[in-house]
């Protein structure tokens, strides 16, 4: 779609989201090579780097690290970002918009299940849904945190 925009002189920007485990897939790097080769600076890939995939830690399953170096080596402009900091998110996307001549990879460091005590960094929550009791507890924790933050404003 980014190539199509270039081909038809359209000015839209394409954002795509990848998991860090997904980077083990060969097709990702085929696309990475292609996007850099055709100078698709209208493409931004956001890699959710929480370090966990279905079978465990990405570094223990089949490590895709070093992720930033790999994208850089494939010809991408790489930005790292803290996914839990709004100011940092804004900084990263502003920087991505300014890059010309090459695609941009934003490697967002994140914590799976952030803010829910029993979910944080637990690989078991990669693809499961909470039951009613767990849902209520999770929402109570998140609501309490939201109230705490709003009191600071």
């Amino acid at each position, binding site marked *: *779609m*980014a*190539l*199509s*925009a270039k*081909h*038809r002189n*359209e000015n839209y920007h394409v954002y795509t989201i990848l998991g860090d485990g997904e980077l083990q897939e*060969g*097709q990702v790097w*085929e*696309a990475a*090579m*292609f996007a850099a*080769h*055709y100078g698709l600076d209208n493409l931004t890939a956001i890699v959710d780097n929480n370090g966990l995939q279905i079978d465990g830690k990405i570094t223990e399953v089949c490590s895709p690290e070093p992720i930033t170096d790999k994208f850089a080596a494939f010809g991408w402009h790489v930005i790292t970002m803290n996914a839990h900091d709004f100011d940092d998110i804004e900084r990263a996307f502003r920087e991505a918009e300014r890059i010309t001549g090459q695609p941009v990879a934003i490697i967002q460091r994140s914590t799976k299940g952030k803010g829910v005590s029993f979910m944080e960094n637990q690989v078991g929550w990669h693809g499961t849904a909470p039951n009613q009791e767990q849902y209520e507890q999770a929402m109570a924790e998140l609501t309490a945190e939201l109230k705490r933050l709003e009191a600071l404003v």
Partner: protein
Amino acid sequence: MSDVIKKATRESYGEALVALGEKYENLVVLDADLAAATKTGMFRKAFPDRFYDCGIAEANMMGVAAGLAATGMIPFASSFAMFAAGRAFEIVRNSIGYPHLNVKIGATHAGISVGEDGATHQCCEDIALMRTIPGMVILNPADDVEAKAAVEAAIQYQGPVYCRFGRLAVPIINDPETYQFEIGKGIALREGTDLTLVATGLMVNEALQAAEVLAAEGISARVLNIHTIKPLDTELIAAAARETGCLITCEEHSIIGGLGSAVAECVAESCPVPVYRVGVKDTYGYSGPAVALLKEFGLCAENIAAVAKDAFSKKNR
């Protein structure tokens, strides 16, 4: 036979893309480092800014094709059948088939007539793979005239189309002045009452020759050209089953999952009659001259005639 003009359908494919490039401005062509062999190189030369080489990365090529189609372009993604249908299958299914995107796959070097490149490149499974994708149209033209017509029909059709072309030069059997192509409509090339040869691709010409041999021996063979494997012309095939009582399918593809399977499935549900399948018999090919290989694997008029004679004697037992 010296006055028979031969041309490989991959050549026809390349020529058709160039000829249709002017008419269809949103036609773009992708290849995976095989432009010289698939003949998309002709299009690259004529329309360099509408050609994208994806390198040896067929999965991504299908993804790029999906993106182009989603934004209104008509991409032809080209590679050898082995890689277009085989290597990239999951992307073709999930990124092109599932959203029913307007991607055309130009798969050349199908079947064992690839010849010297051998078993790793002789794809006899592509029709089987593509048939299982809901909404996928499969075109397998018999000669130059039909191949060119198939390319334009694929462009005019809205949705995914798999076009199968060959490497080997094959006789031109259709008249470009009168030939008419319609997706999903088979063509009765010869009337007959004793049995029907249901053929596709380069086997259509072999079936016509087999029918001559059979006629000389008093067996009246109908010949159908099934250029569209999917959607299958079930009416034409069921009528042949009803009227001749015996079908012999002829394809340069595995007897599992291709035309033979499609025809057997069709008649089993509409008009059960014996169906004999001439094709590659669940085995790999090997390296060798294409014409010799076709004979070796029974993909020739002689073998079709032999199978038909046997079928005819069983029918009348």
